[in-house]
């Protein structure tokens, strides 16, 4: 979805057009849900967070102002991240967010239908830091631009670019060491 179409749909949704909102849902929910599942490793929890994210977004939708530096998708992912933090704060399990999850045998078995490349990437990512994983999630699952990632993480876009570059280098180093 290009920026102009997204902007048009958002304006229509702000005017109360449920159909436009449905189109936004159809486009953005797979990314959001995939991001949430990847973060939480829990489908049920991801569904809850997905619903609360959209409800918060709709509640704040009249106040959203679309501009070049503020895309709806980036805004939605910022809300998603906050919802995750809120959830872990409530469950006093915030450390889970930054806890480095190791790839287990169970994960490998449950991913029997995945291709070898995907399994390989998940193994590589599990060995990266949570910050690196988060940037890669936002870049490749959420499909956000570097500028949007910078807005979501509230850091400079140059920093995002450098971190992303380093994360990919580390992943490549992991591949080389495995081979």
């Amino acid at each position, binding site marked *: 979805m290009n920026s102009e179409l997204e902007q048009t749909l958002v304006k229509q949704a702000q005017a109360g057009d449920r159909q436009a909102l449905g189109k936004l849902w159809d486009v953005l929910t797979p990314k959001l849900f995939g991001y949430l599942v990847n973060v939480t490793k829990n489908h049920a929890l991801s569904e809850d967070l997905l619903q609360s994210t959209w409800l918060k977004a709709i509640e704040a939708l009249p106040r959203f102002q679309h501009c070049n530096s503020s895309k709806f998708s980036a805004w939605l992912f*910022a809300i998603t991240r906050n919802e995750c933090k809120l959830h872990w704060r409530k469950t006093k399990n915030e450390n889970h967010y930054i806890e480095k999850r190791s790839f287990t045998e169970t994960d490998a078995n449950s991913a029997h239908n995945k291709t070898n490349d995907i399994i390989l990437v998940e193994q590589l990512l599990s060995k990266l830091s949570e910050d690196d994983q988060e940037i890669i999630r936002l870049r*490749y699952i959420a499909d956000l631009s570097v500028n949007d990632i910078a807005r979501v993480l509230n850091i400079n876009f140059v920093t995002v670019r450098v971190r992303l570059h380093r994360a990919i280098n580390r992943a490549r180093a992991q591949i080389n060491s495995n081979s």
Partner: protein
Amino acid sequence: MNQNNSIQNLLSEWGKSQRLTRNDQTIKNSVLNSLPVNTSSQPPPSRTKKLWLPLGAITTAIFVIVAYGLTMNSARYSSHPNDTYNYSVGEESKNKGLSSESRNLNPSADKKPSSSALEQAAPSVESHGSNNSDDVFYPTPPPYGEAEIPVTDTRQFLKTDYSSTVKTRHAQEITSRIQTMVRGYDGRIDSANSSEKQGYIEFVIPTEKLESFRIELKQLVDARFTLEQTYTENLLPQKQVIEESMESSKARLTELTAQRDQLTASHNQTVASLESKISASNRKVANFQAQWNKASAEERPALESQISQTQKDRASLNNQLTNENNNFSYKLSGLNTQIDVVEKNIKSIEKQDTELLNTVATVKGNITVTGINIWQFIGFYLPDYWLAYILLIAVISAYLIYRNRITWEIK
């Protein structure tokens, strides 16, 4: 490059595979139904409504800074208690002139640097601590003698007065503890009063214990909360005056005693001479009367005439003796009176000497304890502008954070 593209492609494929399509319409419907149906777009809320927090914070900060500034100005009206001043009058300043430090702190010395009398006798002020002339406290210079002191006399009879101002949050407790300290240093408390906000103590302690007392006082309250003034004066001029008075009085006593002895000796000599003459006259009269008894009638008138003449001479001698005794008594009485006065004067001078030595051996001091509020307390640790900067930075940070939240509307 190929390797870079391959890892990018790998991650892209992985990202796409992670995007999960949900066929369950329940959540979607519930979300879509939550969207209110409006015919027109709701205008975004006014930004000014959201600015109440930073504006309120800025107003509060300005109020706090102004209130703080007013409080600090009133506190600064008195001297800044982070300094120690030693104020001394004596041989050093009189003989060597004022030091540069003293000239900086003594306005009278600055005004008349060429005055020889001032250079010789003006009090010197030594300061320890701040060099900020705005905060300098000028103690009233004591009266000093105009007598020329010989350079060769290097004796010191230092009279020390100690004054201190202590700023604290617990005035009553500190006052009580200082009184205990004074008694601990074999001192005497002349007067003391205390309340929750302030306290005042006048005391006397031995000179040799002053330094220990000051050290303990600084341990009692942080040095930045105390202002010390030590006034030192060399009492050598007074001592010299006493010595000169004593010397002249003793000389006068010796002189008067000698005069009295001389007077007594002279008197005794005169009395003995007169009494001898009177005895000779008596014998002469008796001799004439014996001749008169044996003489004929023609010889008797001549003898009677000689007897009469001799008796007149004797009467004259008796008068001289009486006058001599009277004069002696009068002069002796005068000398004794003068000797008594001189002896009393000597005793008085000895008493003054003892008092001077006692003054040198003790320090008379006073300590004022002043209660301070929390802003003054903070002011001792942070300069005024630092607090303003901190508040300003806090307000700007709060504003930027809040503005960021407004932009994203994330709750």
